[in-house]
């Protein structure tokens, strides 16, 4: 049992560090720290293009489609360094969510057309799963796709679509048959956002920002070649993708970075002459979280190591999602507590400098938006149902 790095691993780590230090410059960091506005899209795309140029854009993909071919250890090193450098993860919808479905279940034409554009970040994807009437009960969806001629005619409404306002494509679960049981009769469609009849309506979330949207479909024509796999079998493809998605939700490297920033700030925040980092009670609040994170890091490594031989992750991946999101929320909450009365200000026309605590506004918005983490991607209640059934056999 060891997580020793070989000489090659250490050399790889140095290469990653060097690359991040050189390419992820202060300007990029600044643009990406605000998670909305026009800047964000161009900033993250320009960063992803750099990663693509380096060949590092898709560590999770099979090598034949453009993956890195890294070992589990190399992936761990890469993620650890990315988190430590404060670099955001790639936008997942294309690279981590639809791409595995395309390269696993898609036709050769679909692979040839879509995968390169995902790798190069030329296409921005969004996810059309949730519907107003179907939240955690994903399969209760009612958006329909009627087959007529060589097209599907899509009608319905998707909701909670993150960054739909930037998207070129949306991958959707749609109902192609009403005769069958709920999970059957669902198909997996790729839809061009430019198609007539597609409209995007913004949703302002409780952090006061616009990341979420509704996407409406009114008689939208989708060519047959945009169907993934077989008609009515979409649920199978989506399910495989969900387990994949969950393994990415532990976000250990990002939580480590947040926690390390939190500790720095706790050393600077002073209450009655004592830095918060030296307060025994605050220390307990910190270590309650840090210890869970230390354990989760190894839980994730254990899952990755067991996947190293190949194959999709099992239902244990739900554990990573549950624990990862709970830890992220706990850090956000503690950050808000640390920000004290300074954390309530909406920025408006005030700069962070004027408020005197430059992380306080961020603490507020991260806390508020962070509440979504236990809701999306299959709520944590659903994840517990999954473990109860599939792991414990209850």
């Amino acid at each position, binding site marked *: 049992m060891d997580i020793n790095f070989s000489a090659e691993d250490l050399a790889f780590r140095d290469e990653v560090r060097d690359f991040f230090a050189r390419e992820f410059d202060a300007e990029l960091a600044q643009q990406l720290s605000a998670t909305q506005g026009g800047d964000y899209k161009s900033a993250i795309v320009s960063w992803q293009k750099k990663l693509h140029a380096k060949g590092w854009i898709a560590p999770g993909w099979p090598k034949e489609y453009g993956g890195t071919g890294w070992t589990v250890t190399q992936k761990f090193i890469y993620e650890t360094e990315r988190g430590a450098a404060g670099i955001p993860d790639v936008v997942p919808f294309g690279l981590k969510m639809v791409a595995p479905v395309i390269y696993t279940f898609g036709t050769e034409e679909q692979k040839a057309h879509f995968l390169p554009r995902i790798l190069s970040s030329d296409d921005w994807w969004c996810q059309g799963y949730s519907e107003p009437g179907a939240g955690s009960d994903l399969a209760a969806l009612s958006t329909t796709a009627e087959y007529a001629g060589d097209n599907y005619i899509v009608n319905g409404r998707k909701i909670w679509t993150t960054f739909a306002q930037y998207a070129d494509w949306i991958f959707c679960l749609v109902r192609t048959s009403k005769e069958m049981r709920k999970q059957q009769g669902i198909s997996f469609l790729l839809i061009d956002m430019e198609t007539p009849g597609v409209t995007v309506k913004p949703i302002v979330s409780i952090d006061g920002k616009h990341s*979420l949207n509704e996407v409406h479909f009114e008689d939208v024509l989708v060519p047959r070649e945009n169907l993934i796999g077989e008609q009515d079998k979409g649920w199978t493809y989506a399910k495989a993708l969900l387990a994949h998605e969950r393994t990415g939700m532990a976000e250990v490297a990002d939580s480590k970075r947040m926690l390390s920033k939190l500790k720095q700030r706790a050393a600077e925040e002073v209450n009655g002459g004592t830095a918060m980092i030296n307060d025994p009670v605050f220390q307990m609040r910190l270590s309650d979280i840090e210890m869970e994170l230390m354990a989760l890091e190894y839980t994730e490594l254990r899952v990755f190591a067991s996947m190293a031989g190949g194959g999709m992750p099992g239902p244990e991946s739900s554990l990573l999602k549950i624990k990862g999101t709970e830890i992220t929320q706990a850090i956000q909450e503690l950050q808000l*507590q640390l920000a004290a009365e300074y954390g309530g200000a909406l920025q*408006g026309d005030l700069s962070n400098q004027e408020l005197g605590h430059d992380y306080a506004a961020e603490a507020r918005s991260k806390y*508020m938006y962070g509440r979504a983490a236990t*809701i999306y991607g299959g709520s944590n209640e659903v994840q517990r149902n999954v473990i109860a059934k599939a792991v414990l056999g209850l």
Partner: protein
Amino acid sequence: MNFDFSEEQTMIKDSVARFVRDEYDIDTRRKIINSEEGISREFWNTFAELGWLSVPFAEEYGGFGGTVEDIAVVMEELGKGIVVEPYVSTVVTFGGLLAASTNNSLKEAVIPSIIDGSCLGSFAFLERQSRYEIADVVTTAVAADGGYVINGEKTVVVHGGTANKFIVTARSSGEQFDAEGVSLFMVDAAAEGVSLKSYQTMDGQRAATVQFDNVRVTDDQLLNSLGQGMQLIDHVMPQILVALSAEALGIMSTLNAITVDYSKTRQQFGTPIGSFQVLQHRMVDTFIACEQTKSMLYRGLCQANEYAANPDAGNAEFLKSVHALKATIAKSGKLIGEEAIQLHGGIGMTDELNIGHFVKRLMTINVSFGNGDFHQKKFNQLNYSA
């Protein structure tokens, strides 16, 4: 032993409840918080007309002569509508400090104008470095020409932008953390040298950064003896904490009620989500948390009344309950707020629904005048040090 409200209290409670129900829906509130001043002057005048602004003030100044319990009655109902008008900052905090001051001419001059709604006030105490320690004051008051000159910056001054007057903490002697040497001055917002920048806060209210740049004040503007401001603050703080806690209780019971109702109608997996045992037990836990919080508030109120009746016996039990109350608010507020969003799911994340706004006010109350850990430690200091 009784836990009933008096007839007068029931009347004012019903009056506030009626206002919130009939006049203050989430869209009305949204318009107000996005308006230029961020409060409704019209509603404020209504509050004055209905007598709500007079509650804590002595009858000799035209007040209702109310108790901490009376304030709590008003605040719980205001909480149910997350009313953003500056009741806590003007009436409870600014007004409370003024009412407890020994400067009678200041009281005579200002209290009636609070009661009639013409004077909004705010307590300017927080500084960039001070966090929860109110005595941590670097703003200075230096004696000059038979008065004092105030220099310094106050931050997150609640509803500072609409305040006509401030009560300001300034250091007239001593070192940064000393309780001795903090003085309280009443300063006109229009006074020379006062400037501010106002902004919205997460709870829909407003706050301001206020600069005091060579602001001249006289002895007449001192609320009590020079350098003894902390005594006055310590005396008034419990009632501010009770008021905020009562508001929080109103928010919590509302969040719970909305969530339980929603769970009965929202369908998932072919059945209302309220039929899932896991969610039922969690709603039971939020119900219990709310009832326990209410009990802690009532404990505080009973002991406030006891202290008012027997001031010589000291306020140790009252203080103990108040710190416990504020710490409880932090815990149950976090539980209830987070569960309300979680049980609503995606819709709970939207700005459009009322849920998030209630939660944001709860989070703000949590960190106002000390968060849960801060007050629990105060509780510990009072009770455990051997």
